[in-house]
């Protein structure tokens, strides 16, 4: 009974997060990056001001953690072809120069910090491996010899 009482607000907070915030981000990779950015580097705790004020910090933290985990598994399960499209959409959606973004992503691999804690190690490796490949494919498509074909 007590578990039920605790779970319902988390579900409500999760639904609120999905409907109000995540629905405005139009690609799965973008949602994943956003959710990872709500996690504090030093403590690993999630925080979202609006969600915490509505549901309390603990419920908001659990909802964010759940959403982050789901977004991660969704992106990791994408085929390489779909991941390339996702990445292309994401890089175009940023206000930065997509080519510069692509170079920075290849060099710094910022997507590594987008992984939640305690996920399966093979899935985590598949995620980083597929992103490295997707970046290499986008880079290849931007090469002049390839784009003029």
């Amino acid at each position, binding site marked *: 009974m007590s578990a039920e009482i605790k779970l319902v607000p988390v579900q409500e907070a999760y639904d609120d997060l999905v409907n109000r915030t995540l629905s405005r981000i139009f690609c799965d990779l973008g949602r994943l990056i956003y959710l990872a950015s709500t996690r504090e580097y030093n403590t690993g705790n999630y925080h979202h001001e609006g969600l915490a004020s509505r549901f309390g910090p603990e419920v908001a933290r659990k909802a964010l953690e759940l959403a982050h985990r789901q977004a991660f598994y969704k992106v990791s399960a994408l085929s390489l*072809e779909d991941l390339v499209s996702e990445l292309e959409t994401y890089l175009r959606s940023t206000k930065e120069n997509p080519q510069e973004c692509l170079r920075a992503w290849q060099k710094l691999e910022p997507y590594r910090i987008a992984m939640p804690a305690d*996920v*399966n190690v093979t899935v985590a490796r598949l995620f980083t491996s597929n992103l490295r490949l997707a970046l290499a494919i986008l880079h290849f498509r931007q090469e002049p010899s390839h784009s003029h074909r």
Partner: protein
Amino acid sequence: MIGTGSALIAAAVLFLLLWIWIRTDASSRELPLAPDEWLPGGGEGAEACPPEFVSRIFSGDDLAFVWRLDSPGLKRQFRRERHAVALLWVQQTSAAVRRIMRRHLEASRASQDLEFAVEVRVFLQYAQLRVICGVLFLLVGLAGPERLRGMALYTHRLTQSIGGVLREFESGARAREISGAGPY
């Protein structure tokens, strides 16, 4: 003469197996391992690999996509990356099977009413899994993960099955302990 011939064949087979092992091991080390050492998983709290990811790792769809791009460099990178992920899955599965068996042995030692048939079944499944993991480890480098999808999914199901037997065994032992303890 037959003895010399057999010895030569055995030596050739041994040499071939060693060569395959070294080649597979080398391909698993080709990726920069250091940056992936901090992957957020692998601890006691880490989740098991869901079956849809086993299917994805050993699928031929991604390979077909990369092949259509017609870039030798990308093909090489894809092979290297996917081999490493597949080998990691084999290693993780093998480690999980060893962990399950260790726990089962500990539980069996503590148990007073062992069922011979269950013990034989668990041991045979364990032996089968260890052999399959060894074969998969060798074949990933030789045949490529995309040709081993059926075998990988079978291994995953068998691992789940042996894990299920352990869970049943442990819950049965707990139930017997509780009923044996009697009322306070």
